[in-house]
């Protein structure tokens, strides 16, 4: 019986051992600062410095960008990023700060930029020296992304950009932005074009970055205003009017359904940080009290906690099954579910934890008596970032209904 999917290729096997050895010797020391749950919530330069140093070290060791060609700063390997990711997650490393760069900008630049631009941008992106952000959403363009109004007007070899982008995570640290804008007001989809823009260099010279305060009270994302910013035509990706197609490459990779595996590290438990998992919920329910008994003894709560555990296990098993072609009827069916399920499951787990907490669910981060330091409340509120960003759950359901089930398009 064939068992090939469960076996590494010789290249992967050798690379896996290399990663394991390197990680054993080079896992970074624990941070002295509290790290946020994900790179999208990085608030201070102290947090950023620690995480950038780690990404640079991992890149220099060949664990980032493994499957990209050497000519653009990659490792020139075949299907090895997955191996590096597995080893980094197992080793419980810190996560990478350049999450938008690695997950969205890199594949987009790789597939749609000219060779020279790729060689200039990708190495510093992989190393984390250049942080990237994404300029897609606008006050008037959320789920209906193709209605963006930020406009670039041609003046010779230059473009002059005016407009307003919102929900821009990491913009306050970013050197570069991937930017979807309009070059033709007469056509909706075909009037869009796609640029990479050096925003840090232009701060105060046509670019303004202002923090937006999240529902949790944290900062971390921003609005970005373009006021007559001049950009070279050489920073345009792909053809004029092909912005929507380029954006699809970005979004496909953002949702984990793209061709190139995103470099992913993580698992480090930072002091005071807290994962929204059924396992943590069970441990919490053992300590919380309800009617004088452990909440974990309450039959109704047990049932609901098991529902979360089952969903969480199913998500892991979906990922496993997505690599077994004989058990798939449609190649995109599981990849396109991933973000939707992951975000909704953790949202429900956090909400249930707050019920388990009872009256103490009212206490927040600054209260000494808050269960888990108030992290369940933080996780619950932050979970809406996940169900709204990168295509809301409603848009995800449209995509699944239309692309996988073949139902009639909503637009």
């Amino acid at each position, binding site marked *: 019986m064939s068992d090939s999917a469960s076996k590494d290729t010789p290249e992967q096997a050798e690379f896996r051992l290399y990663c394991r050895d390197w990680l054993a010797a080079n896992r970074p020391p624990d941070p002295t600062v509290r790290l946020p749950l994900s790179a999208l919530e990085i608030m201070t330069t102290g947090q950023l410095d620690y995480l950038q140093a780690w990404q640079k070290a991992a890149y220099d060791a060949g664990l980032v960008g493994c499957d990209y060609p050497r000519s653009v700063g990659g490792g020139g390997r075949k299907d090895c990023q997955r191996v590096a990711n597995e080893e980094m997650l197992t080793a419980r490393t810190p996560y990478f700060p350049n999450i938008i760069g690695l997950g969205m900008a890199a594949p987009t630049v790789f597939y749609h930029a000219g060779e020279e631009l790729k060689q200039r941008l990708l190495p510093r992106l992989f190393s984390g020296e250049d942080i990237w952000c994404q300029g897609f959403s606008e006050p008037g363009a959320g789920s209906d992304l193709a209605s963006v109004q930020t406009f670039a007007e041609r003046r010779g070899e230059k473009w002059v950009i005016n407009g307003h982008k919102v929900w821009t995570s990491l913009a306050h640290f970013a050197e570069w932005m991937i930017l979807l804008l309009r070059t033709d007001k007469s056509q909706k989809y075909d009037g869009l074009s796609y640029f990479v823009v050096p925003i840090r260099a232009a701060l105060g010279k046509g670019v303004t970055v202002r923090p937006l305060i999240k529902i949790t009270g944290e900062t971390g994302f921003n609005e970005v205003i373009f006021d007559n910013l001049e950009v070279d035509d050489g920073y345009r990706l792909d053809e004029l009017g092909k912005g929507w197609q380029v954006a699809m490459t970005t979004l496909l990779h953002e949702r984990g359904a793209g061709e190139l595996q995103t470099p992913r590290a993580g698992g480090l438990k930072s002091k005071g940080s807290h994962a929204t998992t059924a396992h943590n919920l069970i441990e919490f329910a053992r300590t919380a009290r309800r009617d004088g008994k452990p909440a974990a003894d309450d039959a109704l709560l047990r049932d609901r906690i098991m529902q979360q555990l089952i969903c969480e296990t*199913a998500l892991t098993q979906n990922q496993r099954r997505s690599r077994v072609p004989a058990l798939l009827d449609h190649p995109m069916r599981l990849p396109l579910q991933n973000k939707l399920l992951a975000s909704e499951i953790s949202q429900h787990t956090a909400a249930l934890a707050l019920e388990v907490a009872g009256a103490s669910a009212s206490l927040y981060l600054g209260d000494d008596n808050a269960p888990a330091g108030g992290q369940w409340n933080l996780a619950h509120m932050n979970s809406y970032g996940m169900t709204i960003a990168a295509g809301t759950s409603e848009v995800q359901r449209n995509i699944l209904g239309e692309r996988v089930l073949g139902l009639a398009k909503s637009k």
Partner: protein
Amino acid sequence: MTQPDNFGFGEEAALLKSSARKFFTDRFPTSTLHALVAGDHRPERASECQWDPGMWQELVELGWTMLAVPESAGGVGLPAVAVAGLAEELGRAAFPCPLLGTINASYVLATCGAEAAPALAEIAEGRSASLAITNSVGSWSPGDTDVSCRDGVLNGTAWYVQDARKAARLLVSAQTETGLGLYWVATDAPGVSVQADTIVDLTRDQAHVCFDNVQATRVAANGLAALGQAMPAIWTVLAADMVGAAEWQLQTTVEYVGTRRQFDRPLGFFQAVKHPLVNVMLQIDQAKSLVYNAACAIDTDPARAAQYAHMAKAAASEAAAFAADRSVQLHGGIGFTWECFVHLYFKRQKHSQLLWGDAAWHRARLADIVIGPTTAGV
């Protein structure tokens, strides 16, 4: 113990699954099923046992009924992941036959040791079987039985026996002076009377079986241990059947809402229709992934088999119920009629949902495993 990345679902399993898909698609379209089982719509009708014994014989000749019989006992001995693949296709076709019962009996007998060898040999020769291990209140706890045995003679009644009129043999659990024993009996043996239940599900038959001084062959002295070991496979195989049936419900409803137009649009355009169908798909896929995970644990990680099988049957029960619910609702008026095929699967799924424990039952047992029993006791 580590499990293989691909669930151990290899070429042989993939070939079996695709052959089964083709066999049922070619030979048993839903129109054939409807013509076979839905002839009499009267609600007060007595339950009939409508099936195609000729096609069943073909399944026997293909070897599909002896897949779970170990090679050492003359069977095919395929891993549980392969059996689950076949069960998924069986459920997709809702083919009326005693395959699940035969597989269930194989799994129990395979845990019983030498005493069970002749019974396994009968399955390997093509005999069908069903489990007769449920009492009058329908308890899903293995060990609750209303049948007793003294000196190899059975008395009492086994309830909720699936496909009893199609099966040639029964695996009966009975109380003895020393605990729970398992016995192997022919359905036409003297003293056995199969009393058909009138049931909603048209794709199965069900009965209570009365034993009146029936001579039986013991296959296991410690029946509780045998059943405990085999139940994860029984739950998993049924869950696989439900996943396949739910996929039929999803695809059939998707096709309908693509054709049916209202307000100048296909129904599937509307998000009130589109999103629930996506939710059905999400539930099916979670259940399906959990089914193969459980089957893989049965094959390679037995210590976790019960835990994962509870998850699979709980998720499949929810998915089956939801797919059944939306398949009728989204077909609108036609979905409420006898002529529309969705009722066949609706009824099969509502039956499967509770068979061998519904979702809440499985979650309660899962909680006992992963959280531990409640400290206060029951």
